């Protein structure tokens, strides 16, 4: 998953997955619809990437109800926070030209 040389995480190669993680770093919890609106992606596309992140235990899914409608919200896991921070550090190091 993590490139031993650059320290970049392959999971975060994708723009949408990177976006989801960025949102979850600063929001305790966010709904599927808010995510969709923020990242300007389609339902199916977003859902696929969310599954990937969930499978890697980077995010937690909470299924709830608002009235009769399902309301799915997402939050970041400690593991996800750690992986994302390391990825950002690796990106910063790349910019600085150091490894």
């Amino acid at each position, binding site marked *: 998953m993590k*490139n031993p040389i*650059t320290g*970049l995480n*392959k999971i975060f*190669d994708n*723009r949408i997955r*990177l*976006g989801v993680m*960025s*949102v979850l*770093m*600063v*929001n305790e919890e*966010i*709904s599927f619809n*808010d995510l969709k*609106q*923020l*990242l300007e992606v389609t339902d199916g596309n977003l859902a696929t990437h969310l599954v990937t992140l969930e499978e890697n235990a980077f995010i937690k899914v909470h299924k709830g109800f608002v009235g009769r409608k399902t309301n799915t919200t997402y939050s970041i896991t400690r593991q996800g926070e750690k992986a994302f921070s390391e990825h*950002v550090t690796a*990106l*910063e190091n*790349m*910019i600085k*030209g150091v490894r």
Partner: protein
Amino acid sequence: MEETQSPASSLEDIKDIRRIMDRSSRFLSLSGLSGVAAGICAIAGAVVADSIFNNYYGTYNSRGFTTWDEFSLLKLRLMLVAAVVFLLAFVSSFYLTWRKAKKQGLPVWDHTSRRLAWNMLVPLLAGGAFILGMLRYDIWVFVAPACLIFYGLALVNASKYTLSDIRYLGYCEIILGTVNMIYTGYGLWFWTAGFGVLHIIYGVIMWYKYERGN
């Protein structure tokens, strides 16, 4: 692909991350012009209130007394002016912010603006209840200071959920309100300075800082 990850694309990624973090946690479409509009409404309202006061005290000075009915009418008129000013300020600020959000292609009512509205509303409602409570006991002198202080607290609280510069406007309102507690006879002046002049200054600075080029 990692093989293609260059310093340039890393920089793009970092910029993206920051932009998304900002956009998802703060309501950034608040327009500086909203501040200017609210300020103008406040000053116009203060001018009307001033003439109402002059009218009342003119009667008092020429006749030596005023009746209970005249005093009730004064209160009613002032409340009415306050309500109209609030409504006009709210509608015009809302419109200008809505326009900015439209221009940016961002939603006006999303989780960031909901959170902003709620965090602003709590101190404001507390302040409103407090002021109504004072009026019940005919304590008029602290109305203007209480307006300023609670509004300042609302802004400081809201600054976590929108452009953080608004915090400084909040500090200024709190200071003004506190000073007004000492000079109680000048409520309308302090009120005009806080809600009129400060709003306009803040609005112009914000507009200059964030909106000028666009």
